[in-house]
């Protein structure tokens, strides 16, 4: 079981490198609509970084759902959805 505090800090790091223009305070509120640089290619980058960091595979079919920090966080915290 992943430590929720560690997960959050690692996820923050993922968002920080994928969207360097976001401040630490803006990251938890980030959504595809609110972040100008967050387009479909940025999603691919974010997903790759999340996969590397958490050692999981995110099915491509999930990508349309990963449109906010909260959605990515939910996905990472749900082990049954993320294939190791």
């Amino acid at each position: 079981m992943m430590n929720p505090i560690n997960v959050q800090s690692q996820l923050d790091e993922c968002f920080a490198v994928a969207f360097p223009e976001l401040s630490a305070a803006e990251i938890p509120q980030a959504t595809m609509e609110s972040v100008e640089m967050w387009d479909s290619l940025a999603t691919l980058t974010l997903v790759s970084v999340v996969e590397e960091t958490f050692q999981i595979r995110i099915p491509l079919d999930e990508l349309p759902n990963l449109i906010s920090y909260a959605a990515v966080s939910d996905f990472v915290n749900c082990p049954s959805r993320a294939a190791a």
Partner: protein
Amino acid sequence: MLLFDALKTIRARSTGDEEPIRFSLLCGLTPLHLRTFLTAELLQRMPAQGVDVQIGLFGDLIGNIERSIESPPNGAAVVIEWSDLDARLGFRSAFGWRPNCMADIVQSLTLRIGQLRNALVQLAESTPIAVSMPTLPLPPMFTAPGGSADITALQIRHQLQDLSIQLHAANRIRVVDPQRLDAVSPPGERFDAASELRSGFPYTNQHASALASQLAELLRPATALKGLITDLDNTLWSGIVGEDGVDGISWDLDRHTQQHALYQEMLASFAEIGVLVAVASRNDPAVVGEALRRRDLIVPAEKLFPVEANWGPKSQSVARILQAWNISADSVVFIDDSPIELAEASAAFPELNCRQFPVDDEAAVVELLYELRDLFGRTSVVSDDSLRIESIRAASELKSQETDSEAFLAAADAEISFEWNQPDERCLQLVNKTNQFNLNGRRIDEFTWHRQQQDPECFVLAVSYRDRFAPLGKISVVSGRHSESTLYVDSWVLSCRAFSRRIEHAVLAALFQRFGVDRLQLDFAATSRNGPMRTCLTELLGTEPVSGPVDLTREIFQNNCPNLYARVSDDEPDQCSIAA
């Protein structure tokens, strides 16, 4: 490199105001993470500069190259995949896999490859290029049964092989070594079918990272090391010569000591391309002398200089070798089978690259040989490279006879040759690897160098030297700009092999004479390693220079210039406007 680390590298360096160095990633695929990895790899190789990697249009490799010709970047990474040569060879176009298409694919490939070659050669006229040939598997479109090579696939690969050879022959084009890429990115782990079909990015992250690293290495190659110091017992040969005797040491297949023969052959090859090779051995010098006279030694004994065989600490032998070579420890590898000897030398010279010779481990020796080849690799070998060891030996003789330097220089029968505005590869090599007699320590990339040569106000002077001891080849390069009464010297290097011959004074005299100016403005910057340049300027100016423009007038130069004895030959004597 992980994508996370690549992004972090880019993020950490994105704060500077300085104009970034512009590169192009030219490909027909969606560059996605390949661009990220390439940017990060280039940044790691250029710690003081920003990098901007520009991309082109999806699916238009040749168009992207042609557009780059109009506005050339400082360097271009060109990534070719099968679909760039013919859409039928890719996975995003579902047609052309039927047997009756094969002949047409081979035929149209010839045309496409010709276009690609012409575009690349044209781009290379203005910028250095790193090219990777297709790295992905061909689609399952051929009719031969599994495991059997298909004639169409063989013909396609053959055409690509020909293209690689033609590109490699072109100036400023470097081709990614497929064997190296195979080693760091196994062919079966490169293709990401889902990513290719959904986003047009066909690579796994691991492959994109490996490919970017290879491309960056070709665009910004590491400076090759200059010297290798080797131990003898259980390193250059198997056995301990003092105990086993001269005939008891070996390097052959029969006694299972072939790994030492391979090592010797590598040292012989290094010596041929100008790498300095010396010996540091705790041994009886007479016994070592006898062993080095063995006629079956693969590395010629005369290529080993100096040979330090004594019972003192290795660090002292290393110190004497570095002094004879006149180079710093960070340009040198020391190889010894003994970890204690390596540790002792490393403690004295922390920058020395110390490697243990893995006795009795053939696989590790082969690995070491690959590593050494990388450390001493050269993109080209010029004729002056083979002169290096002879000139060091000559310099050593010169030092030993230096009782009366005036008399010695007068009797040296020296000739200095000046060659104006015809820079070859050796000139840029000298500028980028000389540390001690270097005006400001600044390195110049191929693109900038090439641009400078095209400016009519700029000049390049290449200087060669020979005397009765040996020819030194091309040993100094000066470049700068001429404007009215002042000559601006932007870059000036002199090889450490050519010190103490007053070549630097002859160079300055030539500059005053050719351009007829009364003042040289030298763009000097003190570095941690250019003490010899500082000393030269201090002697000429009468005061230590500070970093910034340094003025040297004709009058001061003439007052402080020592006697010059060398004959001068100038390839453009008529260009001289005022006699010095």
